[in-house]
């Protein structure tokens, strides 16, 4: 088993802890019955990052999140959010934990009002405006007055995200935010996460969907049966695998020669020709190919996929598309 924790963590491993939105040290949870859900977890989530918390179902992601939010007491170790005591940190943190949970007999708006009332730092005077804004951001304005009972799964998920956006947040913890959403909804959530992150909010997203994390996140960590097996920037997590070009051409041999002459490494010839891009601009490669008279039918830049790394690290097939 490869453990890339150290080298992958390097880019921010040296950063001072005060710079981290989430820090855990030796965080461990052993439930009654002896089952270890989280095992000496050392996590460092840099401020301003979009952090993907990956792992197969049952790998301890949700238990970790529950410990971060103070819902579950750690058996050993410690964790801190935003470098503050928990009671001070929580009002600055929006959370979606293990799916939406609301009062079925209340409307979406009344539900948000209820959770806003539970936050001792939320000014009652601006509640209506903040609730309207949160509903608007998740596209639920039209269904605001409808009872939660009659919401579809996707609407429920959106309402849960709206609840996480009720106040000014420095950190968002989203546990499987796209569960139950249709492709359109998934895209909207992804766009929303990016928009929120652009505003300076750190986003911590747990997911078992690789594509999702690859598209949204700047950093990531991988869990396996309660243990952290890797963390770092998404690029470093990909195990140093480089971006490749893939050329679809009938002149396979010529293409391979041109690529080699360009100095590209690891030229592979199969039905198509591929090589590591190595910092070269794709258009330069293409120009060179065309200049040499290679008939380019297709030209693709292939980003390294996390999937192989994850499957290697977690030792099991990942649920790639949910």
């Amino acid at each position, binding site marked *: 088993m490869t453990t890339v924790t150290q080298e992958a963590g390097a880019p921010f491993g040296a950063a001072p802890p005060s710079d981290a939105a989430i820090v855990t040290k030796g965080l461990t949870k052993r439930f009654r019955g002896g089952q270890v859900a989280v095992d000496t977890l050392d996590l460092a989530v840099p401020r301003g990052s979009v952090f993907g918390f990956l792992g197969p179902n049952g790998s301890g992601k949700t238990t970790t999140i*529950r410990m971060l*939010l*103070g*819902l*579950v*007491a750690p058996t050993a170790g410690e964790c801190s959010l935003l470098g503050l005591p*928990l*009671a*001070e940190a*929580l*009002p*600055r*943190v929006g*959370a979606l*934990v*293990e*799916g939406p*949970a*609301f*009062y*079925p*007999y*209340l409307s979406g708006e009344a539900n948000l*009002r*209820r*959770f*806003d*009332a*539970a*936050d*001792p*730092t*939320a*000014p*009652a005077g*601006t509640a209506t405006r*903040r609730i309207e804004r949160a509903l608007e951001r998740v596209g639920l304005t039209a269904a605001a007055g409808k009872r939660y009972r009659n919401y579809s799964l996707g609407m429920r998920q959106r309402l849960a995200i709206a*609840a996480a956006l009720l*106040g*000014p*947040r420095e950190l968002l913890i989203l546990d499987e935010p796209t569960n139950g959403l249709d492709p359109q909804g998934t895209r909207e959530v992804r766009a929303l996460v990016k*928009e929120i992150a*652009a*505003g*300076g*909010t750190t986003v911590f997203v747990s997911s078992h969907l690789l594509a999702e994390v690859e598209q949204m996140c700047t950093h990531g960590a991988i869990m396996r049966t309660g243990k952290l097996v890797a963390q770092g920037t998404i690029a470093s997590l990909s195990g140093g695998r480089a971006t490749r070009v893939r050329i679809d051409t009938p002149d396979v041999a010529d293409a391979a020669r041109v690529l080699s002459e360009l100095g590209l490494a690891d030229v592979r010839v199969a039905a198509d020709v591929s090589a590591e891009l190595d910092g070269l601009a794709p258009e330069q490669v293409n120009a060179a190919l065309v200049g040499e008279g290679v008939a380019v039918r297709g030209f693709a830049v292939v980003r390294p996929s996390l999937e192989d790394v994850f499957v290697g690290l977690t030792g099991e097939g990942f649920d790639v598309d949910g």
Partner: protein
Amino acid sequence: MSTAETSATEARPRRTPGLVPVAETLSSAERRPPEPEPDRLDVRPARMPWAFWRLLGSELGLTFRRPRNLVMLAVLASVPVIVGVTLRIVADDDGVGGMIADVAGNSLMLTFVSFSFLVLLLMPITVSVVAGDSIAGEAGTGTLRYLLAAPAGRTRLLAVKYLNAVVFGYAVTAVVALSGLVTGLILFPAGPVTLLSGTTVSMAEGLLRILISVGYIGAGMAALAAVALALSVFTEVSIGAIAGTMVLVIVCQVLRAIPELDALAPYLLPTRFTGFDAVLRSPIDTGALTSGLLAFGAYITLSLSIAWARFSGKDITS
């Protein structure tokens, strides 16, 4: 990125020239520190002064708008009406005595009769439904984790839940009293009240005694609510906490009925519930009321301590 910036500028409060305070010149406005990031416009002071009451208000709103609770209150309100109408019909026959004659003779007595009908079962059920559901119900629907992450605070949430149950207990008591009073005034003659001891007191004093009994029974319901809340903390299934409280009440009734266990009776909540009839003595049996209130206080202290000890350290896994 650019869209985020645009929305940021929009979110910044506009400075309307006419509304700038006179003391503020352009240069002083320029010198002021840069405005906070758009998303933190309403940067939070530590704690809103009315936060506790806001949460309690939200809790009460939930309790008193919930159809289930309203139905229970309506059922309770209907009992004095049914009893009153029945007694009115029966009282028309000649030669009735005892309780029927008491009620038929005075409009205020119906309230006390209704209390004695309801205080041992129907009122405790109603109160334990609300109090037993308070934490367990939230845990069952999963809303508890979001309340605590908000963060409601465990002690604060428990306090709010308990106060809410107490208010509901008093509402239950008041609904029975009001329904009994109104029905009594409509069906039976108003006037001086003859007490159990045979003394007659004025109508005003009769009303005062109803008020005292409401205070006393409400305190009893508050004690029961504390027991139900303590059970509620131990489960994620509200029906478990509710049924558990009801079983306790019924077991107490059984124990009370066994003559050999008479020594136990003063320590049982239901015995104390019926202690409200002390207001029908002349003068009011304040000793009985006080010892009843002390028993309620003991139950409340013990139950809330258990509830807090368990809830403050509990792993919320629902």
